[in-house]
């Protein structure tokens, strides 16, 4: 799919992405900006698919549009209403127009230079799979998984993935630390709309099943820990919406689930140090099993991490009755 020549559809898609971004930045009402952001996320996912990167498209759809979108919508509908009357132009600061124009022009120049260099490089390299693709495909026999992207993420460049997971972990820590003690939340399914509760009861197991499928599909097709974690976060947030989610007495369980993923990754990394003399080295015999185990625990941790961020941001704003 990524080898097709650039067609009319791709040009239109690119223009639509730019238009979506512009709408998201210049919308007058916050809800309009959030909806434009969601549409932009969907368009980006389609764009990534057209570029032949279905894993990134999955991650964009699940995390960028799904979880981040849920956070934005939650912030806009439950936060304080905008103080400005809707007729006023947002950002009516003198000189704001000129500043926006200059930074926009600079961004366009940089983007154009970057794209031009990329196209020139691609044209010069020819059609054969060169660069890193050839190297990765040549080493797939020791990777332990069949999908090249999973091999890169969890074997060849697993250090980067480990750091990403730790960054997510630190973000969760900072959100929960700055928003204070978890306030007791009273899940009362009886007070919620019956349709909503029924829907969440039916859908949450389905979503958990989908998350498990996406996780194990990552070994030979697009999928993996981050996408699966995002779907799992969706399931937990849905349960929380129905009042069936993690409550104050699940605090310890949540903390264990948060830690177990990065901890397992660190154990495997240290095990590589002990067994092979190199941090994060994976013995080809054990690679497949270790990758699956680490990915499973990572998916659990990522799902719980995203849910905790959502819950903490929601609780932080609920004013005491």
């Amino acid at each position, binding site marked *: 799919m990524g080898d097709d020549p650039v067609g009319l559809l791709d040009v239109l898609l690119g223009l639509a992405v730019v238009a979506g971004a512009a709408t998201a930045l210049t919308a007058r009402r916050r809800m309009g900006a959030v909806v434009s952001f969601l549409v932009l996320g969907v368009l980006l996912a389609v764009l990534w698919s057209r570029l032949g990167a279905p894993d990134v498209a999955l991650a964009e759809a699940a995390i960028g549009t799904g979880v981040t979108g849920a956070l934005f919508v939650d912030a806009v509908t439950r936060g304080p209403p905008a103080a400005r009357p809707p007729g006023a132009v947002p950002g009516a600061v003198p000189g704001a127009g000129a500043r926006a124009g200059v930074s926009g022009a600079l961004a366009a120049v940089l983007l154009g230079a970057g794209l031009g260099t990329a196209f020139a490089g691609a044209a010069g390299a020819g059609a054969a799979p060169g660069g890193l693709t050839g190297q990765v495909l040549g080493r797939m026999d020791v990777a332990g998984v069949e999908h090249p992207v999973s091999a890169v993420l969890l074997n060849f460049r697993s250090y980067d993935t480990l750091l990403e997971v730790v960054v997510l972990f630190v973000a969760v820590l900072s959100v929960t630390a700055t928003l204070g003690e978890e306030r007791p939340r009273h899940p009362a399914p009886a007070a919620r709309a019956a349709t909503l509760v029924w829907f969440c009861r039916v859908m949450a197991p389905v979503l958990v099943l989908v998350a498990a499928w996406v996780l194990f599909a990552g070994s030979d097709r697009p999928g993996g820990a981050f996408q699966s974690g995002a779907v799992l976060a969706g399931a937990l947030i849905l349960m929380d919406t129905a009042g069936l989610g993690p409550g104050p007495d699940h605090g310890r369980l949540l903390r264990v689930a948060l830690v177990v993923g990065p901890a397992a990754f660190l154990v495997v990394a240290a095990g590589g140090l002990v067994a092979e003399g190199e941090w994060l080295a994976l013995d080809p015999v054990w690679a497949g099993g270790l990758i699956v185990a680490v990915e499973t625990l990572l998916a659990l941790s990522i799902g719980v991490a995203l849910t905790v961020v959502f819950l903490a941001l929601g609780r932080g704003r*609920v004013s005491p*009755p």
Partner: protein
Amino acid sequence: MTAGLLLELLSAVLVVAGTGFFTVGTLGLVRLPDLRTRLHALTKADNLGLGLVVLGLVLQAGSAGAAAKLLVVWFLAMPASAVVAHLMSRGGGLSAAGSAADGPGTPGEGGSGGG
């Protein structure tokens, strides 16, 4: 006309019909006056449009497994959109006593519904 060509033609017709329904639904969203009429247009037209697009793609799916997954997408999207439309038409609150008068942005409604 071979069977393969006929199948592709049928698939293309279904997908185009599906996108036609989506366009009509979007037209309804843009042109209709208030929330409930817009929800009416969106849920009906978009669900049918999604169904037609999925059916068109099922005809082109490589295997029974892929076809089943496409159908699962449609069967999951329908109750999701129905429930969301139902909740939105009750005023956007999550509580059982969702009043019709309040909009989704009222802090009090959101606070009691979410807390």
